[in-house]
């Protein structure tokens, strides 16, 4: 039987095992929406295409499956750019299908035409323009394959309307073969085996080793291997913001997060280590601080699936290219207990932990974000899936929630996209309906995508949104306070912020307002007990700073802290 391109696309999505499609229709994608109408795919209508990409991304990060969005040409497609860039920077598998004007009209500045393949080239792992319906099924198959394998990333398929109407016999390509794409460059296993042996030897000879683990370990599903490595050797471990949860922060070997707002002891451990074992991390400048002063005494082991991230920023002495999980499995077989030779090192780290614990000022009546987040952590037993916007609340969430499970911290680490938190929580909750999903957002970040309250309300997506209302672009205010002589240029939100509880109620969502410290715990309990979506509006301290802080351009051990 002949099918239209649109029908073929939907069939392919079904065959790929897609569960949810996030999107919003328009002229050039109407044939596809018509085919979707007959499908068992669950469609989530968003209010803005950026939201669709963040939902697909949140779904992907929470589940490990590929998120899918479907939007129209021109403005629909350009609205996805921020979401694609966010997913690209954090290596998240997303397949985004955009409508396009008819092939014969491409290049004519037709209505709602945009060069989407051109615009999204730098923010996708790969992208396609489908010029012929004959290529469609193969392209969809390749797109899913590319998005999910190797270092994952978003893939875009630009789908002209005439191709979606063209008919042909549908044939599902069982096997695909891309001669120019080899997602597991480490398949030359002999090489990586030798490298792993060298690395194991370096580990066994080290006196001050430190593990530095990033999002790649989460993607690879290597949390059990990491736990085994740490318990077997006793090596202390710090994670990046994207690595949070891959190792339980409640574990005594955890140094918690490193970097600009990392703990003193994580940063000191890295700086004083003689061997830094980087696993699925990429030496981002927010992590390393001033690069020529980074881990000055350390030899560096770097395990990563992306050869291009090896020695990109720092010189690596022991590169191991490949998937983290099998690498660590092999490594675990070659290492032993290092505690005896690390005695002084571990004592030193304990001393740092004692001297510089994470802390906040608990006196006074003001509600501190640290307090709210700490309580959310306790009341969810550190097991909820948490998404965030970008800013102070994001860093405090990283510091105070206390992550214990992989895929539980969902945040825009690489691009730092405000507005990511709320839509991504919707995607995460749809992907993991049985778990508590919490969005901890800033008043600024939340307003960038709050239109998705309609989506949460309509589909009854039971996310718990906590708005930490400090009446400012808090992180901007912090930098202006510290580095721009308190000249608060363009950071005040208070006077023009909406009444958030009224906004939520306007969308038909339960809203709770928290003005006093004593209301915090009851509000969290009430929110957690409620079935559907909830918005908790918390009036927090207006001028509070995130510490510890390593100012940009400083060495990682030049830490500012509160008085």
């Amino acid at each position, binding site marked *: 039987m002949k099918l239209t391109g649109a029908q073929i696309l939907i069939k392919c999505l079904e065959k790929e095992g897609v569960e949810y499609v996030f999107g919003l229709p328009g002229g050039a994608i109407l044939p596809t929406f018509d085919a979707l109408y007959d499908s068992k795919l669950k469609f989530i209508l968003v209010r803005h295409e950026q939201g669709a990409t963040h939902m697909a991304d949140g779904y992907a990060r929470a589940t490990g499956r590929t998120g899918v969005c479907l939007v129209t040409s021109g403005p629909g497609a350009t609205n996805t750019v921020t979401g694609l860039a966010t997913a690209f920077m954090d290596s998240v598998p997303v397949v985004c299908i955009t409508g396009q004007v008819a092939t014969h009209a491409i290049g004519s500045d037709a209505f709602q035409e945009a060069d989407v393949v051109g615009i999204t080239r730098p923010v996708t792992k790969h992208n396609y323009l489908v010029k012929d319906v004959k290529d469609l099924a193969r392209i969809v198959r390749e797109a899913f394959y590319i998005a999910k394998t190797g270092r994952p990333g978003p893939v875009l398929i630009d789908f002209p309307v005439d191709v979606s109407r063209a008919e042909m016999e549908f044939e599902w390509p069982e096997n695909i073969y891309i*001669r120019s794409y080899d997602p597991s460059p480490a398949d030359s296993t002999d090489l990586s085996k030798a490298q792993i042996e060298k690395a194991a030897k370096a580990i066994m000879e080290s006196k001050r080793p430190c593990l530095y683990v990033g999002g790649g370990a989460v993607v690879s599903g290597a949390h059990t291997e990491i736990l085994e490595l740490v318990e077997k050797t006793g090596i202390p471990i710090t994670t990046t913001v994207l690595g949070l949860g891959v190792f339980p922060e409640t574990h005594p070997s955890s140094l918690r997060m490193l970097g600009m707002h990392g703990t003193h002891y994580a940063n000191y451990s890295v700086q004083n280590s003689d061997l830094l074992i980087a696993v699925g991390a990429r030496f981002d400048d927010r992590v390393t601080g001033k690069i020529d002063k980074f881990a000055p005494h350390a030899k560096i082991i770097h395990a990563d699936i992306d050869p291009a991230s090896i020695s990109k920023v720092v010189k690596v002495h022991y590169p191991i290219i490949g998937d983290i999980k099998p690498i660590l499995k092999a490594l675990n077989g070659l290492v032993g207990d290092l505690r005896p030779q690390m005695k002084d090192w571990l004592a030193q780290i304990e001393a740092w932990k004692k001297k510089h614990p994470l802390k906040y000022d608990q006196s006074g009546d003001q509600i501190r974000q640290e307090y709210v987040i700490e309580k959310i952590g306790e009341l969810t037993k550190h097991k909820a899936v948490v998404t965030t916007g970008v800013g102070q609340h994001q860093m405090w969430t990283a510091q105070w929630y206390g992550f214990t499970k992989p895929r539980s911290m969902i945040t825009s680490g690489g691009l730092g996209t405000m507005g990511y938190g709320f839509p991504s929580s919707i995607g995460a909750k749809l992907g993991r309906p049985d778990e508590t999903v919490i969005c901890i957002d800033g008043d600024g970040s939340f307003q960038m995508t709050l239109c998705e309250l309609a989506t949460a309300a309509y589909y009854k997506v039971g996310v718990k949104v906590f708005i930490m209302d400090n009446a400012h672009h808090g992180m901007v205010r912090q930098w202006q306070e510290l580095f721009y002589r308190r000249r608060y240029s363009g950071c005040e939100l208070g006077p023009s912020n909406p009444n958030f509880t009224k906004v939520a109620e306007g969308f038909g969502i339960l809203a709770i307002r928290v003005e006093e410290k004593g209301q915090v715990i009851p509000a969290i309990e009430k929110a957690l007990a409620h079935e559907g979506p909830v918005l908790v509006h918390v009036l927090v301290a207006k001028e509070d700073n995130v510490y510890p802080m390593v100012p940009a351009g400083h060495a990682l051990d030049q830490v500012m802290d509160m008085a």
Partner: protein
Amino acid sequence: MKHTISVLVENHFGVLARVVGLFSARGFNIDSLAVGETHDPTVSRMTIVVHGDDRIVEQIIKQLNKLIDVIKVEDLSQGEIIDRELVLVKVKADTAVRNEVMQIVNTFRAKIVDVNPESLAIEVTGGESKIDAMLELLAPFQILETVRTGLIALARRKALEAPPQYPQQKKDTQKAKTRAGASGKRVNVTK
């Protein structure tokens, strides 16, 4: 240091934009770039000359390798290479100096390809040093226009391993018995 990088890519539309976009997005400078189809019409070869310290060039090569449409990348500067560029130069040369210019042309085994009362158009091929030397000698006569193809290059002994072929293509070329030992990676994705 100068590096001559040979890149085999899928002969698709948009691939050039991907490669060039990668250079500009990452702030790498291209000295010259030449692109053309190979004997296999599904594959194009780009010869890219860049300069930069080894770390930058290593990063360029790794990033090129990450592009899905890139089949193979090789830094030819690692071994002995044959490299050539073709240059057309228009030089001011009236009858008074014409002989002098022709002598230079002969010395470099270049060719006069067009003659005008006031100027000569010269075609020269060669490696970088030959072309630079000739342009230097022509400079006093006043160069009116130049155009260069950009360097193209092959490794002297070792051939770049032929790209693996698609099944369809294999059938087509089996008769011609080309491409023995092409190694591709077959990926079976089954649910």
